[in-house]
């Protein structure tokens, strides 16, 4: 509890992966940090007016423009000659990153601002009541992609955000997970030490939206990695420098833990499609442990 930059008393649900992720990121970044936040769960539960959980300067403006606001902050710091001693972080949920905030994010990456952009990926718009976003995985049950006679849930696969960020030619792109705390904090520290725009996407389970017990936050996020559905990768200057290798588990191990995939349990054809996505990831990034 000493040296807290993200304080207790926020109104996140019990077992929230995002509040855990936000605290870990800020602990790694340290107190000389300025944060710009998109609208989303994180903004709502951490700043219940007139209270704030943040112990560092923090600003929220609109749903889409954390990247643009952070760009302004960074430019101002540069003008004042203070940029070297202050880290600027822009952060958002998956909807604020991949859908609504993509244009501002793309602009920030293209202009080359010295900002770390953190995307907390809980795979739907959880704050407004579990609507599908661009990062919602295939066949997931959300309120706007309900399974029924005409559909098995979300019909589109996850948007490849790390690749989209990478295509801007930025120096650092990584994915991380709250299940691997040290790895997450190492990546944040490394990203901050590099000059230029950086993008980190963190897999954060949402017990409410994913329909699992609060105490399963860590096993669920671990299972996503171990079955190959959430590859943990690290790109530096366009080159893949590290991946978390796995002994592959079947995707059912991950799906059966969550209520949002419950409708798939009696449908092996659909599970096969998800298994193909996982196999594809493993092939693409070389995640298999044996293939070293």
């Amino acid at each position, binding site marked *: *509890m*000493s040296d*807290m930059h*993200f*304080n*207790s*008393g*926020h*109104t*996140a*649900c*019990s*077992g*929230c*992966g995002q*509040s*855990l992720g936000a*605290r*870990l990121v800020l602990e790694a970044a340290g107190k000389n940090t300025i944060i710009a936040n998109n609208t989303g769960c994180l903004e709502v539960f*951490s*700043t*219940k*007016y*007139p*209270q*704030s*959980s*943040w*112990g*560092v300067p923090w600003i929220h403006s609109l749903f889409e423009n954390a990247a643009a606001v952070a760009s302004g902050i960074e430019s101002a710091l540069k003008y004042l000659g203070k940029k070297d001693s202050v880290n600027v972080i822009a952060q958002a949920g998956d909807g604020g990153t991949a859908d609504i905030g993509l244009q501002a994010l793309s602009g920030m990456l293209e202009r080359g601002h010295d900002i770390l952009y953190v995307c907390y990926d809980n795979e739907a718009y959880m704050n407004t009541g579990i609507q599908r976003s661009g990062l919602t995985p295939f066949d997931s049950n959300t309120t706007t992609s309900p399974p029924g006679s005409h559909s098995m849930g979300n019909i589109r696969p996850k948007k490849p955000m790390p690749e989209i960020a990478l295509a801007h030619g930025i120096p650092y792109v990584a994915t991380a997970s709250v299940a691997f*705390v040290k790895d997450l904090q190492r990546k944040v520290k490394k990203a901050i030490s590099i000059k230029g725009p950086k993008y980190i996407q963190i897999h954060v389970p949402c*017990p409410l939206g994913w329909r699992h017990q*609060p*105490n*399963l*936050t*860590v*096993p669920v996020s671990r299972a996503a990695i171990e079955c190959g559905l959430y590859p943990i990768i690290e790109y530096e200057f366009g080159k893949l420098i590290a991946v978390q290798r796995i002994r592959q588990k079947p995707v059912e191990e991950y799906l059966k833990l969550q209520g949002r995939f419950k409708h798939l349990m009696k449908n092996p054809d659909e599970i096969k499609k998800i298994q193909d996505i996982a196999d594809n990831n493993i092939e693409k990034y070389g995640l298999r442990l044996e293939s070293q």
Partner: protein
Amino acid sequence: MFGPLVVKPGSSKKNKTGSWRIETRPKYLQKECIACKLCVAICPEGCVAGGEKNTYHCDYDYCKGCGLCAFICPKKDIEMVKEGSKE
């Protein structure tokens, strides 16, 4: 203009979320502890503290009883007990 919109840092501490616990709460046995700090790192509330071995405890004013610390503890030195029990 922005005056009323700026609030004090860390002022959410006033909000005692411990009242949210409904079923279980963690009990720190403080017997087998090896001070690995995993419980501190994994707490979504950031309400676990401690230093030496067997000194770790959580702040029941804020603990929402999610049970992540009990899950992650490699020595099983944290157990979930029923809320309201005297232990």
